[in-house]
C-alpha cells in the first residue's frame, strides 16, 4: 500500500526523577499519498513528538511508522522537514542551501542546477539566489526552507509550525504558497500549527490532538484547502461552514486547556 501508516504508536519519556511522561498513546493513522493534513492541539499534547517520530528522529516506545510499506527507522530524504526557524545553513547562500539535498545525495551540480533555479522561481526568490541567509527576512527564509525541502523530491513533507514565527500578513501569503506547492507537487504534507485558522485552511484533513496522554481527539475532512488553491484565502474564510467549524474547534481546544489548568490547580 502506498502512503504513510502510523501503527498504534506510543511514546513514553522516562524522566531522570523516576517519573515518566506519556507523550503519545496508541496513535494510529493512515495518510494517503498527496494528502494535506494539519495537526492542531494544545501545547504539550505531543504534536512535535509525533512529527519527530515520523521523521525518524525519535524511535517510538511502541508501534511503528510505515512509509510505502517499509518501516521508518531513521531520518531519510524521502521524508523532508521544514522547521519553524534556525534550520538554514548561514554559511551557504540561498542557492547553496536549496542545492544542499541533491549535493549530499551525489547529484552532480549540472543536473541539479536547473531544478534549484526552478524551485527558487516557484517560491519567488529568483533574484535572491546569491544572497546570504542573514540578509533575508523571516518570510523569505521560510521560502528557502520550503524550496530546500522540495529540491530533494521527498515523498512526505513534515512541517513543525513552519509559519509560527512570521507576522500575520507574511503568514497569509505563505499559506497561499504552501497550498500552491501542495497542488503543484502532489506531495503528502503533514503540517503542525498553533493557529486554528491555519489548520482549517491548510488541511484537507484536520487532526485535533488531546493531551495527557497525547492522542487523536477528533478528525475533520475539510473543503477549504481545495477551495483555497489559487484563490483569495480571505474569501475562503467568509465561507459559512468555515466559521462554524472554527468555533467548534476553538471551543474544543478551550475546554482542553481549561481541563489542563484545572488538573494542575487540583494537583497543586
Amino acid at each position: 500500500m502506498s502512503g504513510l501508516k502510523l501503527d498504534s504508536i506510543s511514546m513514553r519519556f522516562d524522566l531522570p526523577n523516576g517519573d515518566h511522561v506519556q507523550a503519545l498513546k496508541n496513535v494510529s493513522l493512515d495518510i494517503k499519498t498527496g494528502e494535506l493534513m494539519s495537526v492542531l492541539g494544545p501545547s504539550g499534547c505531543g504534536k512535535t513528538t509525533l512529527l519527530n517520530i515520523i521523521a525518524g528522529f525519535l524511535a517510538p516506545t511502541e508501534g511503528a511508522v510505515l512509509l510505502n510499506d517499509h518501516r521508518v527507522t531513521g531520518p531519510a530524504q524521502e521524508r523532508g522537514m521544514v522547521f519553524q526557524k534556525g534550520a538554514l545553513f548561514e554559511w551557504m547562500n540561498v542557492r547553496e542551501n536549496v542545492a544542499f539535498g541533491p549535493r549530499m545525495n551525489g547529484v552532480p551540480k549540472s543536473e541539479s542546477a536547473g531544478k534549484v533555479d526552478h524551485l527558487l522561481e516557484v517560491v519567488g526568490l529568483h533574484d535572491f539566489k546569491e544572497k546570504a541567509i542573514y540578509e533575508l527576512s523571516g518570510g523569505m527564509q521560510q521560502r528557502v526552507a520550503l524550496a530546500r525541502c522540495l529540491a530533494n523530491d521527498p515523498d512526505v513533507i513534515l512541517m513543525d509550525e513552519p509559519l509560527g514565527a512570521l507576522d500575520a500578513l507574511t503568514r497569509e501569503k505563505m499559506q497561499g504558497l504552501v497550498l500552491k506547492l501542495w497542488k503543484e507537487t502532489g506531495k503528502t504534507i503533514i503540517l503542525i500549527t498553533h493557529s486554528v485558522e491555519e489548520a482549517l485552511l491548510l488541511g484537507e484533513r484536520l487532526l485535533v490532538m488531546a493531551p495527557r496522554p497525547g492522542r487523536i481527539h477528533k478528525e475533520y475532512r475539510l473543503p477549504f484547502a481545495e477551495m483555497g488553491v489559487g484563490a483569495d484565502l480571505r474569501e475562503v474564510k467568509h465561507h459559512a461552514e468555515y466559521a462554524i467549524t472554527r468555533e467548534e474547534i476553538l471551543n474544543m481546544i478551550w475546554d482542553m486547556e481549561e481541563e489542563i489548568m484545572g488538573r494542575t490547580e487540583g494537583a497543586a
Partner: protein
Amino acid sequence: MTILLIYIAIFVIAFLAVKFVNSRLEQRHDFTSLKTVTFGDESAVTANRTASVISVIAIFLIWGAFTGSKLTPLHAPGPYQGKGQFDYVVEGPDGQRDGATAFWQVEEKKGAAEDLEITGGDGFAQNDALNIIKYRSGQLRWDGNDEVRRRDGARIVEVNGQPTDFDPNRRDENGNLLQDRPTFRIDNGTATLTDKGALLITPYQGWQMEPIWLPAPEAVWGRIVEIAKEGYQNSTLLEHLGWSLFRVIVGFAFGALVGIPLGYAMGLSDWFRGWFDPIVEFMRPVPPLALIPLVIIWAGIGETGKIILLFLAALWIMTIAARAGVSGVNITKVHAAYSLGASKWQIMRHVIMPNSLPEIFTGARVAMGVCWGTVVAAELVAAEKGAGMMIMVASKFQLTDIVLMGIILIGIIGYGIDILMRRIERWLVPWKGRA
C-alpha cells in the same frame, strides 16, 4: 600619583572642550543621536574617537613632559643643571672657627665638565669645588684641602647661615650617632651632613624621570631605528620579533591541529568526552607560565621546549572552543541535514564544522593572545633570540630604552595579531552574530 591626576585632568578638560565644540557644531540626526535614553543602552555607546586620540596623545605628552623630551612643548621642571655655591663655617678642634665657600656644578656625565677654578680663601678652611653628575648627589669632602682635618676633630657648625650642633664624633658605645643628621637649605638644592661629617650636596632634582628609569620617546624611537639597522645581541630586530612570532605560530598551529579534532571528538562522542574531560578541565586553569619549569626540565631551553610550551598553551583553549562549537550547533540544523539525506561525515563536514567556526575563531583569538604572552615570558626565562630575550638582556644592562622599545613592539604585535584574527574572522564567518 601626580601623573595620574594630571592624566585625569587632561581628560576632564578635553571632555568639556569637545562637548563645547560639539554643541556649537550642527547636530547629526542619525538613529543613535535621536535616542533620548542612552545611559544603559549598550548599543548607543560607541568609543568616542576624539577621546581615543586624546588618550594616546596625552600619554605621549605626559611621557615627553616628564622625560624632558624635545618633542613636547611643555615640560615638568627638570633637574637643576647650572652652578651653585654656599658658605659654611668649620670649627677646629681648638674651638676656632673659620668660614669658606663651596662651589659646585652639575655635569651631564662623569668628567663632562671641567673642574671649577677656585681660589684659596683665608683662614684654615679653604674653599672647595665639586662636580655633581646630573640626577645624583655629590659628597663634598670639605676638609680635603684644609689644614685641619675631620679626623682631627674639625666639624661643620654652620651651612648657608644655618647653624648646627651636630657632632659626628659623639656616639654611643655601639658607635651609633646620638643626633639626627641635619639637612641645610642651599640655593638650588640641599646639603646634608653625612655620619662621617662630610657634606652631601643634592641639587634640586625636579620632577622629570631619569633616562635610566624612563627614557624620552625620541630615545626609544632612536633605539628602534638603531636596532632595526644594526641588531642587538647578534640578531636583527626583525629576527628577534620574527623568532617570537614563528614560535607562536608553530605552537598555535600544533595546538589547533590537535585541539580542534579533540574538541570535536569530545563534542560528538560520550567516550571521548568522558576520557578527556578530567584532563581538559584540570589543564585549563593551569597557567602556561607554570609549565615553563617542567618543560625546561623535559625538553630543555631550545626551540622544542618553547614550541611544546606554546602547543600546550593553545591546545586546551582550542579543545574547549571546538567542543563548545559542536555543542552550539542548533539541533534543527542537524535534523534538517539528516532529513536531506546527509551522511554522518557530511553532517560533520557541512554542518558541524562551519557552524563551529565562530567559536573556534573566538578560541583562536584567545589562544593567540595567550601564546604571545607565553612566548615572551618563556624568552625572558631562557632564549638566544626573541623579543622577550631582547628586553631581558637589556634590563640586565639597565638599557631602559631597549626594554621600553621591546614592550611597545610586543604590545603592537599582540594588538596586530588580534586585529588580523578579527579580519580573518569577519571574512570567513560573515554570519557571526547575525543569525
